């Protein structure tokens, strides 16, 4: 070495850092593979990972989660898939507050089977305990862009699907310790499409550390063509009338005690004569189930096609399958509302004809 001696040590450190950085992706890929291997009942694969130092981040490309045992059919329709998962930290928060700044899912696809007999369980969900079981961490934002969810109703004949797509949204302020929440709830905002025609907006807040399930939620589904629900009625050989529907949902659960309202509004509905008398009741009989017991009180509507279904329910015994349970509650309320509205929309003359 002919240069000044003081350059040697920084030079070695620099070369060392370059070598470590070059190996970071390999190390991260190894760690990711190990973490996926530890998952129970699920096999995870990915194409590659990429680590960045400024801002500190970690991207996983083409992540796929498949239910075990893996079959070619399951590989084609994995439980979860994402074109890209981006995780970002900030150096300060990483060292002092254990806070992941953000996780972003791009082009994510989820399959969500709502299975028969899985809505209730022996061990009620304790969200606070589940969160506190994992190391201290806080997620400022989990966002998803251009994603989709396929809810498959395995309780019904033919397993009809509800397709939520073009989803953009974020879940914010989720922590594994109550003091990291800053006195504010976790908040989910979401916008997307339902089936081919419906436009969906959801706002949900939850206090994961309250005893029992505490959340409040409102959802607006606009301009859903009734023909888009054909899958749900074809098994029962029911013809849906033409028209569209707007649905407003408002739900709040305090420590598992659920209350709320579903308000459907039928628009430009053409009700066929004679044969469809009692269609509302037929649809209700075909679609509604009692996996989660809800008591629906019909509040007299102000006009022929608007109705309001009040929901009271008990989610305090729901196990970890909480999402399917809530989907079931919403679905039943939706069915109740649409059936009630259709019953009201049927002209009395036709009812007599049937």
């Amino acid at each position: 070495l002919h240069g000044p001696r003081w350059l040697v040590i920084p030079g070695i450190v620099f070369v060392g850092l370059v070598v470590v950085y070059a190996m970071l992706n390999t190390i991260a890929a190894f760690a990711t593979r190990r973490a996926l291997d530890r998952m129970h009942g699920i096999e995870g694969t990915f194409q590659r990972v990429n680590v960045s130092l400024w801002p500190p981040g970690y991207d996983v490309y083409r992540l796929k989660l498949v239910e075990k045992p893996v079959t070619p059919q399951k590989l084609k329709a994995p439980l979860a898939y994402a074109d890209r998962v981006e995780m970002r930290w900030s150096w300060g928060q990483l060292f002092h507050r254990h806070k992941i700044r953000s996780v972003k899912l791009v082009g994510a696809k989820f399959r969500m089977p709502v299975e028969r007999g899985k809505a209730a369980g022996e061990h009620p969900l304790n969200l606070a305990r589940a969160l506190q079981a994992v190391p201290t961490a806080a997620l400022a934002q989990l966002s998803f862009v251009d994603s989709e969810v396929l809810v498959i109703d395995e309780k019904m004949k033919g397993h009809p699907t509800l397709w939520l797509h073009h989803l953009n949204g974020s879940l914010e302020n989720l922590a594994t310790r109550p003091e990291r929440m800053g006195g504010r709830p976790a908040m989910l905002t979401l916008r997307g499409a339902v089936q081919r025609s419906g436009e969906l907006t959801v706002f949900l807040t939850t206090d994961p550390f309250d005893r029992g399930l505490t959340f409040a939620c409102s959802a607006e589904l606009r301009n859903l063509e009734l023909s888009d629900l054909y899958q749900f009625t074809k098994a029962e050989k029911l013809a849906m009338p033409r028209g569209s529907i707007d649905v407003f949902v408002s739900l709040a659960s305090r420590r598992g005690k659920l209350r709320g309202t579903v308000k459907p509004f039928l628009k430009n509905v053409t009700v066929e004569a004679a044969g469809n008398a009692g269609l509302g009741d037929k649809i209700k009989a075909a679609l509604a189930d009692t996996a989660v017991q809800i008591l629906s009180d019909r509040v007299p509507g102000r006009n022929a096609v608007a109705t309001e279904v009040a929901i009271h329910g008990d989610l305090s015994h729901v196990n970890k399958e909480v999402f399917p349970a809530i989907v079931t509650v919403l679905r039943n309320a939706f069915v109740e509302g649409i059936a009630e509205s259709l019953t009201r929309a049927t002209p009395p003359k036709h009812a007599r004809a049937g």
Partner: protein
Amino acid sequence: MRWLVLLVFAGLASCHAHEAVSPAEESPPSPLRINSPRPVATTPEGLIKPGGIAKMQRALREKGLDAPQTDKLDEQTKSALLDFQKREKLPATGLPDYVTVRKLGLDPNDIFTRHKASR
């Protein structure tokens, strides 16, 4: 003649009975709020402090977006929020959230209610 007009109207009304049109009172259910240690609400308005929406509208206007001065989360405000979120490459929902509020240059603690003594 009057009977003829009434008859025509009755005929039109009976045709109309086959088509149920959208009701006049198409509005979401009343908002609900639960005062848990981290208060939750069914709508963003239920969590926003008085004057908070006006602050967001002012910030949106300062960013060159078409937001009204209503202090209400109306369709025009939601549309301005949606445009801002798209421009900033945030999840485009048209609803206020903590990250959007920060990107608007506001402190979420000035906009959203919170329990100071959280467990």
